[in-house]
């Protein structure tokens, strides 16, 4: 009964590749550029080039494609569903007809484009989270957000909230599994019954989960206080982020490619 075995989307796989070692800021920005591009382009060649770019990133990162696909597995149905919707629901030149369904040329193209868009989007974000530890990810985000300090953006606080949230996701999942097992042992049944009963069945999970989460939040707050935490003001970092030449190079290449692909396609 390993309920959460399949959740791997966003999991960090430690490694020592070129991609792993890029500055997180550069990786985040590069990721953003590719995503923006994905929604700008409208030609097949654009998708192909972006796809090849991201895939070569995965190859360079030496991450086993199994992990990438495991992340995709949960989302593949969503992609297929949107693709089918587009396939059948777009008006235009009919090229194929089954019973009351008709497939149009425009629908086919739209469907394929949407699917490629989502597919590459997931690949890109997977590549980011697979190769960047949560700590450096939030570090990078904090630094990026701190460029917006002049509009009073609480960069440190946002980053700290993200760090804590990321830190507690596995803990909460583990705890949910434990509570479920305990309630099953007490006679609860989470597998059968109609929707009303199933919803009611969540109470024995949610109440203890929330009680524990609040208690934990309280303890964490006290522990942080005891360690002298008082927000981001004047706080230094154990590991200072540094932009190296390779980061600048990487960023230049990505930007150049993004602009070319964006303009051409």
């Amino acid at each position, binding site marked *: *009964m390993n309920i959460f075995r399949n959740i791997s989307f966003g999991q960090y*796989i430690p490694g020592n590749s070129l991609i792993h070692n890029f500055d997180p800021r550069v990786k985040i920005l590069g990721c953003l550029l590719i995503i923006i591009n994905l929604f700008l382009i409208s030609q097949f060649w654009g998708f192909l080039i972006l796809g090849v770019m991201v895939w070569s990133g995965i190859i360079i990162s030496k991450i086993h494609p199994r992990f990438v696909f495991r992340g995709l597995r949960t989302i593949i149905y969503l992609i297929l569903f949107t693709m089918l919707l587009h396939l059948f629901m777009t008006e235009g030149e009919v090229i194929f007809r089954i019973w009351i369904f008709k497939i149009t040329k425009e629908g086919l193209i739209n469907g394929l484009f949407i699917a490629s868009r989502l597919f590459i989007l997931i690949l890109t974000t997977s590549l980011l989270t697979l190769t960047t530890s949560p700590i450096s990810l939030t570090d990078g985000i904090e630094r990026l957000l701190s460029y917006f300090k002049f509009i009073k953006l609480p960069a440190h606080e946002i980053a700290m909230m993200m760090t804590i949230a990321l830190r507690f996701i596995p803990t909460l999942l583990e705890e949910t599994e434990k509570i479920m097992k*305990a*309630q099953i*042992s*007490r*006679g609860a*049944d989470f597998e059968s019954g109609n929707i009303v009963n199933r919803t009611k069945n969540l*109470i*024995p999970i949610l109440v203890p989960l929330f009680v524990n989460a609040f208690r934990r939040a309280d303890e964490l707050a006290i522990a942080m206080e005891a360690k002298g935490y008082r927000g981001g003001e004047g706080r230094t970092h154990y590991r200072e982020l540094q932009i190296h030449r390779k980061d600048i190079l990487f960023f230049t290449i990505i930007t150049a490619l993004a602009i070319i692909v964006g303009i051409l396609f």
Partner: protein
Amino acid sequence: MFIRLENVNYTYNLNMPFETVALNNINLEIEKGEFIGLIGHTGCGKTTLIQHLNGLLTPTSGKVYIEGIDICQKGVNLKLIRQKIGLVFQYPENQLFEENIFEEIAFGPRKLGLTEEEIKKRVYEVLEMVDLDVSYTERSPFSLSGGEMRRIAIASILSLKPQMLVLDEPTANLDPQGRSKILSEIKNIHDHYGITILLVSHNMEKIAEMVERLLVMNKGKIILDGSPREIFSRHAEQLIDIGLGLPQVTQCFYELKKRGKSIKEGVLTVEEAEREVLKKIKALANNLQK
């Protein structure tokens, strides 16, 4: 035979880079009415093992039989198995969720579809089993002390009328008084109501004098299985080797023996030790008189 485990293996995260072998070829038979202790280092697989007894985990390979039925087959009524074998998790106070204690204990019986009358009867019955007053039924489970919460959690399993009770470190994080209270209740549940007990514990002292049979696990294997006396006398060395150690009195006598004193091995309780020491002193005094 009540429970039989045959060559049970279990691996967490099978076929992934971070897979952990938690159980390694476990063979175990349990009869009705036994009172068994299970000890072992942290991370040796105790919790994993007991989750196999009521089908919460299915072995990666091997078989689990409950009353002759292979519970890993498709179509086995696991609900019935889980009612027969009550599993009390570690820190069971973290599962309480109802408004009052009556409802908390009635949760299981209600799921069994009993009448209100029967449910009431069961709740009062099990409250007595864990030695709590009837007046508790009105209180919120969150208003209790840690030890009381734990007893309520045990009661909520007992209300399913299990034939066997499996407890995962029921005394963890309790003060000495709360600890003895829970343990004496467990003993009472066994002696008085004839419920088979499997008790996972780190507390060697208590377990040594309570249980009739002791299982010792190390790195996913059951390495010793026998009466506490036998294990603590004959296998003392092995226990020390794997870093589990012995109960304090046993350890003391073991050291004396090692220093060449002719003294009994496998002494389990302080009372027993006292008797032994007095016997020795008397013998010594007699010798002197002569």
